């Protein structure tokens, strides 16, 4: 990593290959920015472009967020603004960092600007989860201390925010159909998951069907939140190393879900409807 990242013009292909197998924490922020095509590989152009994109985000915040006025806002804007606002305290509540008011304000701005810029999907619950790994990684880069937010300067905070916004945007551009009106992308992927499992473990599918368990009942969330609700932050970061290294991660994710499901095949086959649903809603992955 040191060598690849140190080059004047970074070989993104090589970086991709490395990151696919996991990225050391100290290189993660930079590697993700590069692989999500937010930061240019060419060191000479880097500062200019980053400044421009961060400024652009700051402008968008002023334009959309700071000027938000409930009296004048359109119904769409208002719905988005309020929905995000009520979801903030309910975002990754197991991590104290995300209960911090300053952090929540940051997330509110990021998600609102994202929603305004993506009217085709709008903000969908679960995207609030997806922004947290970025926030965690970019914040860690600035400050490894637990009491971070106290020591963060406003300009540092703006940078973290802008990076989160752009990386979230670029990442979700490859998974947009998950968040359209009827969740078409998710339905298709859940269907594909079922097909994969049928091929690899037909008995499991038969067992699930015999017990009236539908794949959509448990797998929808796996796609909507990219398994974030099933894994620890640590585990998610590792998984995302692979995802940022792969533009078609959204399709690859189907195979990850298949692997997760198959790993519990034996247990599931001994369970009935209720036990299966309970198990899959809260899989024993704490130690993963």
């Amino acid at each position, binding site marked *: 990593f040191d060598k690849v990242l140190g080059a004047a013009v970074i070989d993104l292909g090589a970086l991709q290959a490395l990151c696919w197998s996991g990225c050391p924490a100290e290189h993660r922020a930079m590697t993700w920015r590069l692989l999500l095509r937010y930061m240019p590989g060419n060191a000479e152009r880097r500062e200019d472009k980053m400044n421009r994109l961060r400024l652009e985000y700051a402008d968008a915040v002023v334009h959309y967020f700071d000027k938000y006025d409930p009296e004048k806002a359109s119904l769409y804007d208002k719905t988005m603004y309020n929905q995000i606002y009520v979801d903030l305290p309910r975002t990754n509540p197991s991590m104290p960092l995300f209960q911090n008011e300053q952090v929540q304000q940051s997330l509110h701005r990021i998600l609102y600007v994202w929603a305004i810029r993506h009217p085709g999907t*709008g903000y969908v*619950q679960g995207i609030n989860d997806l922004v947290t790994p970025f926030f965690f990684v970019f914040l860690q880069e600035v400050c490894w201390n637990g009491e971070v937010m106290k020591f963060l300067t406003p300009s540092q905070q703006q940078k973290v925010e802008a990076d989160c916004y752009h990386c979230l945007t670029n990442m979700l551009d490859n998974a947009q159909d998950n968040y359209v009106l009827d969740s078409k992308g998710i339905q298709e992927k859940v269907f594909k998951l079922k097909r994969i499992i049928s091929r690899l473990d037909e008995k499991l599918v038969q067992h699930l069907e015999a017990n009236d368990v539908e794949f*959509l009942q448990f797998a929808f969330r796996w796609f909507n939140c990219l398994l974030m609700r099933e894994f620890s932050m640590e585990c998610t970061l590792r998984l995302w190393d692979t995802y940022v290294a792969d533009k078609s991660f959204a399709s690859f994710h189907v195979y990850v879900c298949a692997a997760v499901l198959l790993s519990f095949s034996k247990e599931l086959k001994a369970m009935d409807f*209720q036990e299966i649903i309970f198990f899959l*809603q809260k899989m024993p992955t704490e130690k993963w």
Partner: protein
Amino acid sequence: MADVRGKNNYKIVLLGEGRVGKTSLVLRYVNNTFSDKQQTTIQASFLSKRINIGENTCNLAIWDTAGQERFHALGPIYYRDADGALLVYDTTDTESFAKVKNWVKELRKMVGQEIVLCIAGNKIDLDKERQVEKSEAEEYAASVGAYHFQTSAKLGKGIEETFLALAKKMIEQRQENDSRQSARRSGGNAPILVVADDTSNGGSGAASGSKACNC
């Protein structure tokens, strides 16, 4: 979706706008826990509870659905075959009450008359911020043949009563459907759905004394 289609298995679906407290109501009911930082529900989650009603033990299979409208496209897989629906609104939010009315329409249209409806006005602990008057909600519930209760998941008020009334009515409804033992007691003139008036302290009288089943 038949679930565990046991004889004493009843399927309930929770519907209502986002953040009115659907998950909190169920968690209070099933686990007796409460957190005001409850994660948003994605699509739906499943819970169950065994209860004793008279001599019968029945299992309530509860689907707690996501409030955000985005997830409603798949609603039918949860309310199809449901024996009862608990429609939740936030007493401090008029819009959430309007959503309940939409749900009633959709359910009547898609599922029909047989599903037992119960409406719960949650967050009565925030009485100072109340926007939906109890009388208004009761009147509406009566007009569509639904129970109405006022609840507070935070304080644990009114919840047992709500689910108990719902469960009793579902049992009664199923017995009627099965048309076995057609009238152990003259159920003949009882309305299909009963609006049980509930007092704001969680409701004792009408609910427990409702014309429910005799099991």
